[in-house]
């Protein structure tokens, strides 16, 4: 920002220098230097502009300070529970006093992790979470790429109808589906305590179809036409041409899809009764409800389990942040 604090001495006649002063928060934290207008003004105008710019800059600096303070306070409020979770999980006896928020090197232990592992079999439940999440991602990608490609690149009668069908699955809330899906999957098909039963309801993912449709629409049609002229079938075009260039869209879809099943509680909770089939979120929740109130200080083990559950998603998200931030995440919630 410092580059802009000098008043322009070459006497701009337009307000060009202002254009770039405040709205810099686009892609980067780097401030583009102001674009100067050609030298046309008088010295007096220049001086006036300079004073004005100085006031603006001062006001802006204050505003930015306020913004920074606000964001810092917010960040503390948002990150503190994570910090507190990790600290608590490492204390022999989680300390709920104010001092307990600061880790004491003498009081650090991994015993809570061993404890929760002996009750939940962390590896097994993490594996279940992984199969559930991975299965949902595979279904989502296969169905989404095919449908997204068809909707963006192919012309067939009824395409509009197909698209409205996809749209419809975004606006109907899940509660409407909960009881019938439970009856169908558990009672009719006997898929309780099975991975397939967990995965199936999440296979219909309109968000992924949107992401792929949007992406394929942005690719010039000529590319696909050229491949067709070369004699490639549509499936070949999809596999050899469309999917390789759609890599960023695929990553976005994976990140957006991952959060859902990894964090999902209600559906796997409904259909898994055996702990050996439960994802970690469900197993941990059951542990919380069964021991809550019984133990004197049960939080150490719970917080250790929570940390194990939280870390994979947070790490994945931080590593792939830029894909997560793509604006087509807008449709990322399945009601």
């Amino acid at each position: 920002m410092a580059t802009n604090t000098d008043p322009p001495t070459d006497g701009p006649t337009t307000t060009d220098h202002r254009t770039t002063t405040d709205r810099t928060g686009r892609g980067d934290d780097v401030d583009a230097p102001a674009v100067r207008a050609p030298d046309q003004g008088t010295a007096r105008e220049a001086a006036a502009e300079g004073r004005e710019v100085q006031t603006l800059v001062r006001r802006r600096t204050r505003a930015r300070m306020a913004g920074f303070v606000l964001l810092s306070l917010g960040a503390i409020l948002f990150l503190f529970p994570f910090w507190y979770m990790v600290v608590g999980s490492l204390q022999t006896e989680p300390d709920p006093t104010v001092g307990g928020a600061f880790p004491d090197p003498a009081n650090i232990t991994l015993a809570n992790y061993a404890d929760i592992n002996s009750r939940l079999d962390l590896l097994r439940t993490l594996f279940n979470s992984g199969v559930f999440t991975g299965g949902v991602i595979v279904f989502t990608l296969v169905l989404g790429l095919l449908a997204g490609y068809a909707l963006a690149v192919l012309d067939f009668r009824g395409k509009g109808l197909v698209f409205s069908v996809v749209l419809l699955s975004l606006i109907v809330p899940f509660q409407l589906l909960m009881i019938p899906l439970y009856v169908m999957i558990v009672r009719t098909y006997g898929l309780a305590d099975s991975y397939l039963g967990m995965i199936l309801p999440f296979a219909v993912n309109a968000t992924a179809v949107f992401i792929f449709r949007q992406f394929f629409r942005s690719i010039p049609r000529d590319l696909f036409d050229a491949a067709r002229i070369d004699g490639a079938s549509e499936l070949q075009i999809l596999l050899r041409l469309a999917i390789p260039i759609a890599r960023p869209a695929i990553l976005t879809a994976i990140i957006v899809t991952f959060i859902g099943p990894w964090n999902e509680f209600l559906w796997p909770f409904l259909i898994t009764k055996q702990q050996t089939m439960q994802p970690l979120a469900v197993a941990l929740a059951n542990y919380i409800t069964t021991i809550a109130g019984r133990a004197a200080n049960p939080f150490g083990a719970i917080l250790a389990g929570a940390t194990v559950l939280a870390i994979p998603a947070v790490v994945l998200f931080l590593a792939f942040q830029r894909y997560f931030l793509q604006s087509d995440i807008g449709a990322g919630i399945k009601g």
Partner: protein
Amino acid sequence: MAAATDAGPEGQYRTPLRQRLFGVHPIGYAFAGPYLIFWLALFAFPIGFAVYMSFFDWFFAAPGAEVDRPFVGLDNYTEVLGDPSVRRAALNALIFIVINVPLTVVLAMVLAYALNQALPLRTFFRASYYVPYVTASVAMIAVWLWLFSGGGLINQLLGPLSPDPSWLVNSFWAMPVIALFATWKQLGFYVLLYLAAMQNVSDELYDAAKVDGAGVVRRFWTVTVPGVRSATTLVVVLAIIIGANFFTEPYLLTGGGGPNGASVSPVLIMYQEGIEQGNAGYGAAIGVLLAAVVMIISAINQFVLEERE
């Protein structure tokens, strides 16, 4: 729409009957087919099934057993509407929405506005707001349970000001704590939506406002807030959907609905009545009503907010 690219020249030489019937690429059916099949089996059929069940005394029975599930018309619906625990749940959902929606809209918009400026540590700030959103509710609830428990940090800080009985077992405070939790948990997602929307607000409007001498606050009110109105519509709709949908929070945070159902939610009742008790017809009726209310509210909201644009 893009049919012209292919159909035009080809049509002059070949009989386009097949094309006229199915379009240029009938293979599109094969491509969209798998999604449609899953959509029919796991979306369209269950919706119809839910509506069907809600008109019957539909209960669970052993597989293969011949049971009579008589048609009861609107009985399930009248029963649901007369059920005091359903009323309590509806009131709780309303409390939730009244706290959650305005807080979400205001905080998300202000934070996104601040994040949209060039600031040091921007990436760090952005990430810190999204972290609760990407983390499992169950993990976050575990920490809140600890924070808000009787001898927890919040009460330690408040000292004699802490409520008695403590937050999560207090019939007045249980719902507000749940609403606060949900706001905190989801806020990052909405900040993201607003940030995306703010990228589309034209710079010229800001420049014009600045030339007219508008300060930061003024520009926020006159340029940003109207500029992101369609995002606000989306945020309000999504927040209401989540408000109608919450289950994990009352189930875990307040031990299955709090003192005397003070934090029971509609979906929690669906679970208890429809699945635990086995009255699927009754549960389905709650689901149909809930979905109808959510969709009507969304439609009204869409209409009101979009109209003003």
